[in-house]
């Protein structure tokens, strides 16, 4: 798929909680085909401290309205600057980048996300559902205020939720949930995105149960399109570029 550099227009900036916000951005042209797991490199304008672009996953895609939604957590200077975007602002992106989740032969999937790591899982869940896959989410958040668009996830399948403090769903992290402890073998595919420790733990459990598992990694990047070799992940095939051979890897290939 051809990569392009394009100016999008911000049409909405919705604050989800004290740290998360969702940018809806629109293209002047029809969107190219975008795949779940892929991402864009966002140029951060108006900051004199942010130099490189920032990689962000596609959270939701609406081809009819030529819009893409991005779920972003404010963690530092770049994401803070982007949080100030208002409708009418321009957002320059390089996209679409990276590979995508694979779903061949999948009939029953469990999508495990932690925090802002749920971002690529909504687009994935939607796509899987339209391919008649039985979709199940296990999503972990810090507390009740950090839940993101639960209704949208529910529209794609069953949703199980944990919060660290028990203010919603089961108390604990996704790793404490019953589903993970006993049920992984009931799925023919596990997808996961979130903090590295969570993904690694999920991967090991999936391996034990002999269930195929894919993780979407978030290594820091300089270019995002394969030219600098800064984003590498150690794998059984050597050091691979997360921005090209990833961000989605079969967890059997990853050397954590």
């Amino acid at each position: 798929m051809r990569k392009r550099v394009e100016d999008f227009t911000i049409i909405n900036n919705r604050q989800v909680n004290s740290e998360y916000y969702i940018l809806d951005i629109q293209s002047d042209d029809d969107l190219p085909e975008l795949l779940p797991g892929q991402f864009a490199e966002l140029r951060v304008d108006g900051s004199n401290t942010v130099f490189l672009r920032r990689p962000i996953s596609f959270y939701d895609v609406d081809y009819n309205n030529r819009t893409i939604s991005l779920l972003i957590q404010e963690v530092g200077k770049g994401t803070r600057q982007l949080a100030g975007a208002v409708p009418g602002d321009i957002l320059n992106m390089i996209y679409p980048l990276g590979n995508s989740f694979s779903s061949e032969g999948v009939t029953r999937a469990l999508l495990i996300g932690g925090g802002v790591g749920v971002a690529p899982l909504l687009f994935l869940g939607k796509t899987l559902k339209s391919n008649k896959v039985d979709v199940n989410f296990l999503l972990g958040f810090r507390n009740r205020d950090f839940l993101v668009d639960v209704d949208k996830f529910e529209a794609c399948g069953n949703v199980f939720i944990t919060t660290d403090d028990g203010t919603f769903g089961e108390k604990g992290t996704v790793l404490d949930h019953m589903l993970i402890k006993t049920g992984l073998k009931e799925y023919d595919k596990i997808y996961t995105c979130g903090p590295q420790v969570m993904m690694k733990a999920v991967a090991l459990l999936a391996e034990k149960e002999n269930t195929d598992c894919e993780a979407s990694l978030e290594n820091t990047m300089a270019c995002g399109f394969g030219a600098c070799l800064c984003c590498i992940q150690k794998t059984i095939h050597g050091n691979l570029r997360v921005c090209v051979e990833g961000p989605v890897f079969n967890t059997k290939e990853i050397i954590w």
Partner: protein
Amino acid sequence: MVDLAVQIGNLKFKNPVSTASGCFGYGYEYEDFMDVNRLGAIFVKGTTGSNREGNPYPRMAETPSGMLNSVGLQNKGVDYFISDIYPKIKDYDSHIIVNVSGSTIEEYVEVAEKLNELEKIPAIELNISCPNVKEGGMVFGTHCPSAIEVTRSVRKAFAKTMIVKLSPNVTSIHEFAKAVEGAGADAISLINTLLGIAINAKTRKPVLSTVTGGLSGPAVKPVALRMVWQAYHSVKIPIVGMGGIMNATDAIEFILAGATAVQIGTANFIDPAVSMKVLDGIESYCLENGFSDVNDLIGALET
């Protein structure tokens, strides 16, 4: 019409704009964004005698107006380059110049000898300035007798244009420029990255797995300009200048300081088509300022 062609050793570049090693992959990574055939030259990733995995992650830290990297010459080695990469890029209309790296003089010579056989590789850039490998690399570029020895040895093995890439991590750049000129370099290129550190105060740990890394981007531009200017006044061979070029004005500054051609590195990550904007901008600058030949700008700094 502006005459944009410049001469580097025996090699004519159709224009002075090229892309820097390690920042432009092998060229094809950029095909979606621009016509890579319009570049004067493409300097491809550092190539060594055999496969190298490079340094562990993390290898990159963003810094004020720049970045540190410690990629450490990850590449599949010269034989793989010849069998799998060269066929894909040899027919570009831009010169393909291979950045030759190594840990020992023998390794540099081995790589250069193999590349000498390739018809469509008209030049090499001898990288004696990589700060990110334990042995070799920068050692050759920061110790004058070693710089001379490796340049001499590779000179014997490589008959075409040899550009030697200098390290900025030295006190007197002109000594090195003169030394490699005397040892047979057809041209010099500079600067490679400046050695630096990024620290995460929260974790009290270095950001890079290797602690130190190489600084690039606009943060290094004034240092790079100064070094190009000093080198220009100490050698007769042409200079390929780089370090923090983000736009045409930056590139013209390098040419005024004495560079015959320029390389664009880190800027490609932010705007993958920036090199074409630099090329068009140099042409407009010449037109607007009454220069019919870009060569008239080389070293034209009025002091």
